[in-house]
């Protein structure tokens, strides 16, 4: 699809807006509709759209596989880390009051924001992994260059 000028232009002009909208969703999770899950999905959709048009190898050049593998775990660690931090400060697990002991109610939106970033990062990483694994090996030209040519033949 990368030779189609309409597809190229449409994708190039849409991706910045998708990313900005995803960041808006992420940052306003506690104020309006949306949150980490939706934001992670939209960011992943933007990159996967890029991958569909320009090829998986080009997408993995922008977002490498080791990076998305790592993000899946980093998000869960951020979420659980917010809880462990509260425990370390002498509060209950995931009691966000630990972030601002002088104003527990005001700390709750902060805790939510941190937790939502964790959710968003995990969802983004896993969605990218799903796309990478589904399309792996479907187009030999899309894959990273290999030392062994037999690697690109699937089903053997």
């Amino acid at each position, binding site marked *: 699809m990368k030779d189609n000028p309409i597809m190229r232009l449409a994708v190039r002009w849409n991706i910045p807006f998708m990313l900005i909208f995803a960041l808006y969703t992420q940052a306003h999770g506690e104020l309006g509709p949306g949150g980490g899950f939706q934001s992670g*999905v939209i960011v992943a959709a933007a990159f996967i759209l890029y991958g569909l048009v320009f090829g998986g190898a080009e997408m993995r050049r922008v977002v490498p*596989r080791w990076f998305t593998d790592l993000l899946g775990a980093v998000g869960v660690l951020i*979420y659980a880390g917010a809880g462990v931090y509260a425990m370390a400060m002498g509060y209950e697990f995931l009691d966000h009051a630990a972030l601002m002991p002088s104003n527990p109610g005001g700390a*709750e*939106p902060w*805790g939510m924001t941190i937790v939502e970033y964790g959710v968003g990062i995990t*969802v983004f990483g896993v969605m990218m992994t799903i796309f990478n694994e589904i399309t*792996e090996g479907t187009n030999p030209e899309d894959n990273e260059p290999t030392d062994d040519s037999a690697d690109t033949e699937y089903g053997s």
Partner: protein
Amino acid sequence: MSPTIMLDVVLLALVIIAGIAAIEVRNLFASVMLASIYSLLMACFWTTMDAVDVAYTEAAVGAGISTILLMGALVLTGETEIVRRAVHWPALGACMLVGALLVYGTLDMPKFGDANAPAHVHPIYAGFTKQDIRKDPSGKSHDDNVAAEKAAAHTEAEAHAETAHGHDDYFHGHVPNQVTSVIVAYRAFDTLFETAVIFTAGMGLIVLLRGRRGNPLKGGLL
């Protein structure tokens, strides 16, 4: 018939048409697009029901990422469905049974727009749902309403200072978006393990699929 109900009927009719068309059409690309349209119509429907968080998720996940992932899968499968039109009666029966159970389950829920629904009468959230009333029948100005809401919210916060957090904070201890408040604060454990489930799904996919086709270990951590 009120315009809202007419809109709902039209939207739901289009949803049914899109759903049936997505199943019946033989071209898989068209089928994916119809499934996407189905999700978009459902998102519109959720919006008219004032369930904006659900609508958002439906639009992002149903119309967004799953369409794109299915298009990625189309590269593997080819474009045309192999036609097998035999009806699988046990499967049909199971679907009808589960559908009937779901409808039976909704009978216990409060009616749409019911002012006495638990979501509207719960003491902690009552102060916030007052802000959701769009048209004030008494014809008071916006500022009056805001002042009244502030007073109501303040007394709520004072009344529940011991159950909620203190009343001196900006959000009275609870963020404006009740859905986020419930998901991330009230049911934080639930959401933590949902995130862990998503993570586990990704790891399972890597373990099962990575290396089965093509280059096994290059480019990944595992």
